[in-house]
C-alpha cells in the first residue's frame, strides 16, 4: 500500500504545478508553430521539445545532473554551441553580393538601431515602473532586433542567462514572422515609385576578394572591437573555409553534420531554459513585445537609410532592400524581393538584398560586441 502511495506521490499529476502545465502547453505551441506553421522548425522544434522535457514535473531533466542541464552547461554556458553555429552560418554565407556593392553595408548598420531603440525601450519601461530590467537585461533583449539566433543566444548567455529562454524563443519566432512583420512597414515608408527602382546589375566578384574579405573583416574587428572577435572570428573562419577552396571536406562537414548536430543540442539546451519559474514572469511578456518592436524599428531604419543614401548617391538603390539589413538571412532578402515584385513584376531584388542581409549579420555581431564590452 505504501508503495502505491510512493508511486502516486511521484507521478507527474500529483506534483504538477500550474506553471509546469502551462509551460507544457507553451512547448506544444512551439511544436505546433514549428511543424504546422513551419516557423524556423530547425530551432523551434528542438526548443519546443526541450521546453516540454524541462517542465516534466519531478523529472529534473533541466536541473542538476539532468541531461538538458548538462547540454546547457557544456554547450551554451561555455559559448561553444552558438559560436559553432555561427561558424556554420559563415560556411553557408556568400559575401559576393556584398562585395559587389559594399555601400549596402550601411543599410546593415542602420538596421541595428532596432537593437538600441529596444534597449532604450526596456530601460524606459523600467524607469516608469512597468518592468524591472537591468541594463544587461535590456542589452540582451535588444539583440533580438539583430535577428540572428546564435548572436542573441551568445549575448544572452553572457549578459542575462535567466532571460535566455525567452530571448531565444522571441528571436527565432520573429525571424519566422519576418514575412508578416516587414511588408506593411515597407509599404508604409516607401512610395510606389521608389519600390519600382531598378538597380544596376551586380558585378562578378573574384575568388581572391572572397578569400581576403573575411580575413580583412577579422583584422578590423581585432583592431577596433576585440569583444566581437569570438563571434565574428568563428563566422569569418567558417566563411574562409568555404571560400578558400582548399579544405572542402572540412567546409562540407561544417555545413552539414556539424551544424546539424550542434543545432539539435543547442535547441534542446535552450529549451531547458524555458522552465516555468523562469519563463512565466511578466518580463517574458515584455521581452516578446520589445522584440517585436526591435524588428519593426530595425526594418524602418534600414528603409530610411536607403532613402537617405539615395539623396547623396548617383546609382539609386531600391529602398526595399534596406529592410533586409536586419539580417534574418535569407528570409528578409526574400521579402524584399517579393514586395519589389508587387511593384514591378520584372524587378528581381533578391541578389541586391543579399548584400544588406549579410551586412546585418556583421552589424548585429558588432553591436553584440559593444554590449559585451561595456556590460560584460
Amino acid at each position, binding site marked *: 500500500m505504501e508503495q502505491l502511495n510512493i508511486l502516486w506521490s511521484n507521478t507527474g499529476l500529483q506534483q504538477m504545478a500550474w506553471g509546469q502545465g502551462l509551460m507544457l502547453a507553451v512547448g506544444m505551441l512551439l511544436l505546433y508553430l514549428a511543424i504546422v506553421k513551419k516557423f524556423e522548425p530547425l530551432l523551434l522544434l528542438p526548443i519546443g521539445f526541450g521546453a516540454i522535457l524541462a517542465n516534466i514535473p519531478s523529472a529534473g531533466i533541466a536541473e542538476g545532473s539532468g541531461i538538458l542541464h548538462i547540454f546547457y552547461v557544456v554547450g551554451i554556458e561555455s559559448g561553444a554551441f552558438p559560436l559553432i553555429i555561427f561558424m556554420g552560418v559563415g560556411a553557408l554565407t556568400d559575401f559576393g553580393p*556584398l562585395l559587389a556593392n559594399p555601400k549596402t*553595408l550601411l543599410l546593415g548598420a542602420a538596421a541595428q538601431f532596432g537593437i*538600441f531603440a529596444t534597449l532604450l525601450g526596456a*530601460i524606459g519601461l523600467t524607469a516608469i515602473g512597468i518592468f524591472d530590467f537591468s541594463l544587461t537585461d535590456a542589452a540582451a533583449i535588444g539583440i533580438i532586433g539583430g535577428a540572428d539566433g546564435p548572436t542573441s543566444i551568445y549575448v544572452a548567455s553572457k549578459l542575462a542567462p535567466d532571460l535566455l529562454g525567452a530571448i531565444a524563443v522571441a528571436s527565432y519566432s520573429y525571424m519566422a514572422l519576418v514575412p508578416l512583420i516587414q511588408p506593411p512597414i515597407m509599404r508604409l515608408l516607401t512610395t510606389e515609385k521608389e519600390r519600382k527602382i531598378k538597380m544596376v546589375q551586380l558585378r562578378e566578384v573574384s575568388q581572391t576578394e572572397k578569400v581576403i574579405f573575411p580575413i580583412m*573583416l577579422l583584422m578590423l574587428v581585432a583592431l*577596433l572591437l576585440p569583444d566581437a572577435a569570438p563571434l565574428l572570428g568563428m563566422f569569418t573562419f567558417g566563411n574562409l573555409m568555404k571560400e578558400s577552396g582548399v579544405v572542402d571536406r572540412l567546409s562540407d562537414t561544417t555545413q552539414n553534420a556539424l551544424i546539424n548536430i550542434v543545432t539539435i543540442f543547442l535547441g534542446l539546451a535552450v529549451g531547458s531554459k524555458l522552465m516555468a519559474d523562469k519563463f512565466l514572469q511578466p518580463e517574458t511578456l515584455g521581452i516578446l513585445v520589445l522584440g517585436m518592436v526591435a524588428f519593426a524599428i530595425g526594418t524602418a531604419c534600414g528603409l530610411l537609410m536607403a532613402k537617405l543614401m539615395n539623396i547623396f548617391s548617383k546609382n539609386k538603390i531600391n529602398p526595399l532592400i534596406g529592410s533586409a539589413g536586419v539580417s534574418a538571412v535569407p528570409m528578409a532578402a526574400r521579402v524584399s524581393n517579393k514586395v519589389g515584385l508587387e511593384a514591378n513584376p520584372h524587378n528581381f531584388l533578391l541578389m541586391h538584398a543579399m548584400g544588406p542581409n549579410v551586412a546585418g549579420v556583421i552589424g548585429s555581431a558588432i*553591436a553584440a560586441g559593444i554590449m559585451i564590452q*561595456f556590460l560584460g
Partner: protein
Amino acid sequence: MEQTDLMTEALNLTFFGMGFVFLFLTLLVFVTKFMSIVIGKIKKNSIAVEKNHCCEAKSELNEETKFVIEQAIKMHRGA
C-alpha cells in the same frame, strides 16, 4: 535618481553603440572598396603571366601523378 542614471547610461550606450556600428561598417565599406580595386589591378597585371606559368605546369604534373597512381593500382590489382 537611480532610474535617471540608468536612462543616461542607456542613452550613452545607444549613442556610442550606433556611432561605433556606423564607424565600423563605413570603414569596412572603404577598406572593401580599396581591396577590390587593388586586387583588380593585380589581377590585370598578372593574368597573362600566371596562366602561362604555374597552372599549366601544375595541372600537367597532376595529370602525370594521376596516371602514375592509376598505373600502379592497375599493376597491383593485375597481380
